[in-house]
């Protein structure tokens, strides 16, 4: 079964990359690849004050789990962590942490990139950028 190989968290509290790395640690793993997102201080040259993340929580968790299961099915991967934050985040804070362990590094890179790419396409989480004068839901309009 895939339990014990997958760790999914969606929370308003700060994410801990230590917890994420500790979950995937495995004496038969040869490599660990991680992606850590951070809130940028600008978008297209406009200064970002903060971000607000909203999630359709139950569905977001189930879509995150699907990504993890698919990563394990499609790549030679031991364990995968997908953690995402909700609520208000300041510049420099971490909205997402993905960590993958695998026997070989190529699979770990592929699975980690697959996970973040797919998360941004399918997981029902929305991001509002707050600028000095105005705010916008990211990607909402063409």
């Amino acid at each position, binding site marked *: 079964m895939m339990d014990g190989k997958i760790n999914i968290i969606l929370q308003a509290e700060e994410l801990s990359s230590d917890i994420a790395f500790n979950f995937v640690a495995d004496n038969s793993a040869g490599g660990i690849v991680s992606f850590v*997102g951070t809130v940028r201080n600008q978008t297209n040259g406009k200064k970002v004050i903060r971000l607000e*993340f*909203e*999630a*359709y929580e*139950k*569905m*977001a968790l*189930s879509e995150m789990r699907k990504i993890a299961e698919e990563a394990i099915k499609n790549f030679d991967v031991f364990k995968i962590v997908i953690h*995402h934050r909700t609520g208000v985040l300041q510049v420099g804070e971490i*909205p*997402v942490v993905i960590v993958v362990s695998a026997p070989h590094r190529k699979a770990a890179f592929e699975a980690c990139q697959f996970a*973040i790419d797919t*998360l*941004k*396409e*399918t*997981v*029902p*989480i*929305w*991001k*509002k950028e707050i600028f000095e004068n105005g705010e916008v*839901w*990211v*990607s*909402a*309009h*063409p």
Partner: protein
Amino acid sequence: MKVKILAFGITKDIVKNNSIFIDLNEGATVADLKNKLESEFPKFKALKSLLIAVNEEYGNDDLLISSSDEIALIPPVAGG
């Protein structure tokens, strides 16, 4: 039948609420719901995309809707 629709992200701003009720005919599909929504809220047509989740799964256009389903509006996602 009256169905309750959860709204998220920009759709919450458009319908000015966390959820709305919509009247649909029995046997209505996801496509029917989208048409109804776009005529009641023309701003939906300006979105890059609008998907409908039915019981926490993305619903195809021809999926039948029942009044007991949990239905949600999914505007373009932007996690990460």
